[in-house]
């Protein structure tokens, strides 16, 4: 069970996204989001664990939580 208590503004379901992949889907959504929005990215790609945090580090956005409790990951990204 997830213990994360954050209500995302928007959810990007990138489960099964082979190419170009979940991080690209996330960036696309962050572009059209407003500051303060929290975007939840759902991904079943192992690669997302490094991809998402590395990208967030390059920007002013923040990775506020990662849900690893289910059969896919949930990344909560707060838009700067």
């Amino acid at each position, binding site marked *: 069970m997830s213990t994360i208590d954050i209500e995302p503004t928007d959810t990007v379901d990138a489960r099964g996204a*082979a190419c170009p992949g979940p991080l690209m889907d996330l960036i696309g959504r962050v572009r059209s989001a407003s500051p303060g929005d929290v975007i939840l990215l759902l991904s079943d790609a192992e690669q997302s664990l490094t991809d998402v945090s590395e990208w967030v580090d390059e920007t002013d956005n923040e990775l506020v939580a990662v849900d690893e409790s289910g059969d896919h990951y949930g990344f909560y990204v707060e838009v700067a």
Partner: protein
Amino acid sequence: MTERVAILGGGTGGAVLANNLAERLGPEIDAGDVEVTLINDDPDHVYKPVWLYIPFGQREPADGRRPLRDLVDDRIDLTIDRVTAIDTDGKELALRDGAGPLGYDYLVVATGSTLADDEIPGLAAGGHDYYSESGALALRDELLSMTEGHLVLSVVGTPHMCPAAPLEFVFMADDWFRKRGLRDDVEITYTYPIQRVHGNPHIAEWAAPIMDERDINVETFFNAESVDPDAKTITSMEGTDLDYDLLAAIPPHRGVDVVDEAGLGDRGWVDVDKHTLEAEAADDVYALGDAATTGVPKAGSVAHYQAGVLSQRLASEIRGRPATATYDGKTLCFVETGMDAASFVEFDYENPPSPAPPSEKLHWSKLAYNDSYWLTARGLL
């Protein structure tokens, strides 16, 4: 009672589906039990993969255009008009020019991608593209007169059509300038939104060493925020500035507004079940090709495979049988690695791509595939 199928969009997916349905449901259509209408806002069918070759002077826009009427089966009703609204409750489409709305029992949305340069300040004025006919022609003029300076290829929009095309462009440009003895005076830089040179790790792993070998500079984690056409700089969300002499960009993409207005999805992309291609928000509505959010690339091959699946599903529905055909994520791409060599990848939801070693044979296969498109779209090949 006549069952009415409306296909909205006569691009790759819509045209292939129409022809496939004409073949499959021929007897029912002839008997008047089924009516298939294809609606497109251009009397021509446009085959976009040709545009990659226009900037290098190897193809003309006309090579990618044919009258839709010549391409689709006579049993298909063709309506050249623009759909201005989709009413999924009343099951009808509003037309810009036509008299009265067009009713349907089954609707397939195949509206493709459109470009949204305006989402990045300065991009329209400062950048070029080969993702539109007019863009490819303007870029050709610039490339032909370029003898020195910095060529920047920036992948701005995600998702975008044909994820291989940005790699292809820089590989081709490198080879093209080299063969003309200009490569020492032309610097080439490729920028990509994430930390690899391609979204798919397998393709990125394959492409990165080739770029290195061929002196193509790479800027990763580069998501363009703005372009300054006077200073000729492009600036990223991550805070990097790049000077350019010629900027070729993959602009942001959207679908079409009628999709959002009908509540079928965001940014013009229809939310669908990735196996059945059924729209999540409405009954008897499907989407395919670029317009459908399945997580696979926006590619003609995808639209083609999905059309085959949807044709089977629709025929089953119409005949009152359970629909069993599903889309497995199959994607096929030829990837140009120069002016006369190409690679090839194939993958699906379960199996990752593994690019084939580049060869001249694969390059000719890609050109042959493009030329034979006019036959495959008709269902003849």
